[in-house]
Structure formats: C-alpha cells, structure tokens
C-alpha cells in the first residue's frame, strides 16, 4: 500500500481488471497518447488491440462498445470529458440503457462509460459539464461518482466487473487527492453502498462527487464553531443508497445536499425530495441544496468560481439550519 492519487486509482483499477480478465478492453480518443495519465503504460502492457484510439465519433464508439459487450466483451469507453457525452446520447440512452429491457433480458451490456467533469478551470460553457442528473433520470444506467482515490479504485473495479452498464463520472477537482490504496486484487466497493465520511449529530451534509471534499472542509470548520456535521457520500448515484442517507437524516433531523451539478432536477433535488417523502417526521428544518447556479459556466476565472458550491455556502446553510443565524466568521 502506498499513497496514490485519484488519477492513479483510475489507472490501477483499469490495469488490474484488464490483467485479470482479457475480455476487458479500453477505447477512446487519444487514449494511447493518454492525456490525463489514466492509461500510462497500457499499450506496452496490453497492446493496441485492447488499448484503442478511436476517431472523434463519440456516438459511433459508444455504440461499438455496446455491440462488443453484447457479444461477450467488457469494454471501458473513455469519453474524455463529460461534455462529449451529448453527441453519444442516443447510443447511451436508446441502446445501452434500453437494450436489455427491450429484448426481454436477451442482451447483456457489461460496459463502463468513463468521463471527466472538467470544471472550474476556465474551460467555458461547452467544456465544463456535470451532466449526471440527466442520466439519473433514465432507467437502465448505473452511475458512480467517486470522491476519493480509495473509492475510485474500489468502485471502478466493481463497475468493470458489473454485468450492467455503468457510467463513471470523474471529478477533476479530486484528481490530485491521495489515499492509501488497497492492492488486494479483489478489493472492490459494491455499487449502491454509500459511506459516512465523517460522523456528526446536528446536521447531515450529503456530498456528491467533488463536493464531498468541500463538505468535509465545512464540517471541520463547523466543528470549531460548535456544530457537529455528519458527511454522507452516496458514492453511487444510481442506485442511490437512500437507506444510509435517511438513517443519517433521521439521526440529525437536518439535511444539506451539496452537488456541483446545476440545481434544477439535480441529484440534490432528488435526494431532497426523497428525504421529504420518507423522513418528513424526522425533519427539524428545511432540507437545503447547495448546488451550482442555474447559469452556464463562463470562461473568466473569477466569475466562474463564484458559481459552484463553496465551503462558505455550506457553512452558511448549516448555520441557518442549526442556529437559525448567519454563519459566524471562521
């Protein structure tokens, strides 16, 4: 065990599973040259048949992944940035999400669609998407959004072993975060199981993807101010571990959901609505969402950064719920 980054975790998860199972292969644009470092050394290890550069044809290679999966392969489809999922939307929805169902279980689609949410670095509106809520609305897709290197390794390995299609949303704000990574070949984190990242009693802060790190920072500062926050990381967005979230909210009586997606119809909205439906009796205060403003992401760095969830906004929300007063200056 050695400390490794979130990007290393992606690389190691893929490498171990490709070693273990030769039905696993990976394809994507410029995957051989390997811009982000998630396939370093793969061509040497696995050759260019299993590590495959694609044309700029997202819908085409997404569908090719589906076809390969139907005949028994287990593709990992690297779509580079989440913004490039839109050209591939039809294959993801009409084919990948729906084929098993529409053919009455005859089709099996064991594949992983990876993409990076590359936001907060002046990439402007066409390159800064965090579109997982759209896919959550569609049955037939499992969705993971790991927030730590540890979770990434365990969840991505599980995803590659899954017999259902899984989308993996990688949060670039977590790229450099580090963990000790277990190297047991069968270390996996099962999909659908959330994680309490910090225990607390006054308020539950449910963090999505990179927002978990913000929630943890906020919880630390809140502790110094006498507020005990529990941080819950669902880790998998479809299916959501609602039992874990509800258990936490029943304990604290208060909930804040922090989600870097646009607010409307977000994961935060879904979690809030479900909490209200199922734990209304336990709520001592409204459920609040701390999300990205419902506008596009601008290029200019100062105005871009102000639009995402921040530690300050989380703290303000916690104070509002717990003390009924604005946050004290930390």
């Amino acid at each position, binding site marked *: 065990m050695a400390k490794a980054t979130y990007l290393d975790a992606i690389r190691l998860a893929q490498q171990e599973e490709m070693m273990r199972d030769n039905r696993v292969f990976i394809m994507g644009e410029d995957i051989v040259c390997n811009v982000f470092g998630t396939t370093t050394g793969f061509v040497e290890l696995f050759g260019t048949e299993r590590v495959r550069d694609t044309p700029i044809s997202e819908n*085409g290679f997404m569908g090719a992944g589906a076809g390969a999966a139907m005949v028994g392969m287990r593709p990992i489809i690297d779509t580079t940035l989440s913004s490039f999922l839109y050209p591939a939307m039809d294959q993801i929805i009409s084919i990948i999400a729906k084929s098993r169902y529409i053919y009455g279980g005859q089709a*099996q689609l064991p594949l992983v669609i990876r993409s990076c949410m590359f936001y907060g670095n002046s990439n402007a509106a066409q390159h800064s998407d965090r579109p997982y809520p759209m896919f959550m609305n569609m049955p037939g897709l499992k969705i993971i959004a790991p927030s730590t290197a540890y979770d990434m390794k365990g969840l991505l390995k599980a995803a590659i072993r899954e017999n259902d299609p899984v989308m993996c949303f990688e949060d670039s704000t977590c790229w450099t975060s580090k963990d000790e990574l277990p190297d047991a070949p069968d270390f996996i984190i099962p999909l659908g199981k959330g994680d309490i990242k910090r225990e607390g009693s006054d308020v539950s802060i449910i963090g999505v993807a990179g927002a978990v790190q913000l929630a943890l920072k906020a919880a630390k500062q809140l502790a110094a101010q006498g507020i005990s926050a529990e941080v819950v990381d669902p880790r998998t967005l479809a299916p959501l571990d609602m039992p874990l979230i509800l258990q936490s909210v029943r304990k604290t009586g208060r909930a804040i959901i922090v989600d870097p997606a646009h607010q409307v119809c977000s994961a935060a909205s879904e979690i809030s609505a479900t909490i209200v439906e199922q734990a209304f009796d336990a709520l001592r205060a409204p459920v609040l969402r701390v999300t990205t403003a419902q506008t596009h992401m601008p290029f200019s760095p100062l105005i871009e950064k102000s639009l995402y969830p921040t530690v300050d906004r989380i703290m303000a929300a916690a104070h509002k719920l717990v003390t009924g007063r604005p946050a004290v200056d930390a």
Partner: protein
Amino acid sequence: MTDRPNDHSLEKYRRMQRIRTFESEAEAIHAAGEIPGALHTYSGQEGSGVGCCMALRTDDYMVGTHRSHGHPIAKGAALRPLMAELLGKATGVCKGKGGSMHLSDFSVGSLGETSIVGSGVPVAAGAALGSKLQGVDRVTLCFFGDGATNEGAFHEGMNLAAIWKLPVVFVCENNGYAVSTPASVTVPVKDVAERAKAYGMPAVIVDGQDVDAVEAVVADAVLRARTGGGPTLVETKTYRYGEHAVNMGRILLDRGSELDEWRQRDPITLYRAKLIAQGVEAATLDAIEQEVVTEVADALEFARQSPYPDVTEAFDDVFVDRLPIPDYINS
C-alpha cells in the same frame, strides 16, 4: 449461388413464404385489434432479408431495424415466440417488452432490431470488433434502410468498420422511401452504394427481388469479412408493398403505378417460377406453402393461449437484478 435447386433453395423459398404469411396474419389480427402499437411490414422485401441471412452461418450475428419481422424469420427464428411477442405475451421472444418494432431472437444471432433509425450501425461495428478481439471468425450483418444513411450514426459506424477492417457486412435495404419521403429527396447520390467511397469501402448494388443474386453478393462480402478483408456495403434495391406502418392511415404515398410494377417483380413469385423452371415440382412448393400456413396458425394459437406478463415483470431486465417493486404496483 445455387444453379440447381436443392434443400438450400427450398429453405430460401420456405423462409420467404414464412415472412409473407406471418405478416399477412399479423396484419389481419392487428386490424382486429389483437396487436397493439405500430406494425411495419416487410412484404416485398423478402428477397433481400432471406438472401442476406442464407449467406450467413447460424452463429453469425445480425442487427436490424424497426421493420423487424423479416430479419429474424430469414435468419431461422421460430415463429411462436415472434407471434407471441406481437401480442405482448410473456412467452414472446422479448417477453412482451419489445413488440413488433423489436422482434429480436438472440438465439439465431440477433443483436437487436432497434427502432431508432441508424442506431444499429455502430452496434454492428462493435459486435464485429468483439469477434475480432476474441479471435473468432463470426461475421456481423447489419440491415438498415435508405433513410438511415442520413443519420450520423451510419457515418460513424461505417467509418469505424473501415478503419478497423472489421468483419461486418452492411446491408442497405433501399426500398425507396423513408415514411413518406422518397430517397431522392434526402439522399443526394443516385445509389446509396456511393456512400461507401467516403470510407474507402467496397460496395455493391444488387436486385433485392432476386434472392439468389442477393445471396451471392452477400456471400462474397461475408467471405471477405470472415477472412480479414474488412467490411462491405451492399445495397439491395427493393420495395415495400405496404404503407410505412399499417396503423398510419393518413400517409398516402403518391406512388402511382410504382406499386404495380414492383408487384410484377415479387421476390417470391419470381423465385417460384425460377425453381419450377429448374425442375422443382409445383407440388413441392405448394406443400411448403401449406406447411408454412400451418406453422403460422400454430404460432398464432400459441400466442393467443399464452399469458400476459405479470405487472411485476415490468421491473425485470432493466438490470441483471430485478428492481424493487413500488407499493402501487399490485400484481
């Protein structure tokens, strides 16, 4: 392919008859309200589907379209599960979840009759990629219409197959129309086959009403694919007798005498005449027709006797594991 009639020829005749008879029964019971949803018939195109599929091995793959009845029957699917599917029964080939637009029998190599136009092309390329990676010599054949060649998915799938030299045969069943729109209005080249040039892919045009000619051309393409020569685009010139779909009453194609002219070149009639000219007894062919009628009747009876799926089955097959059933669903 076959100059002298043999079992293979008779099987082609049988499969064309099966499609025709199955569909005329389906049309009748659709009109009577026994089949819900849309029904896109393949009548007129049997020479294309059967010629293609008879050039394939049983373990070769096939991807199709919304006009989904002909392809699985051509590939040899049993009729009972197909007819049960049309009626939305639990014994249907897709357990009643797909219906007429998705008659896909995976046991005969089908990888889906997908009703989103053009969406099968990348899937076929992917299946062929899978076979290539597995080192097996299975070929994938992909059916689509003239209209589908205007979709981006067609372009991307063709390109992938070309650059990776995948073992796939693309078959454009050019019936001249997409719903109400003539191909001439939306495809700016005379033949869809021209489009292969954008991918440096060999292409061939064949009379889709001549089942033997189709089989011969496709057999060549299959051989090329199987032996590492890469993909081919085959364009079968054919025609659908029906409207785009049987329940779309309002579409009145102004097709003048076109329909009559094509009926003169009916693939089944032509093949029957050819077989008889080659020495097959009319009685042999009549017997096949009779068997097919019985088979279709049996399939319909089976379908009618079959139960509808239980409501809880709506939560099956989304994933490998059944989804939890909401309270409001009472089985």
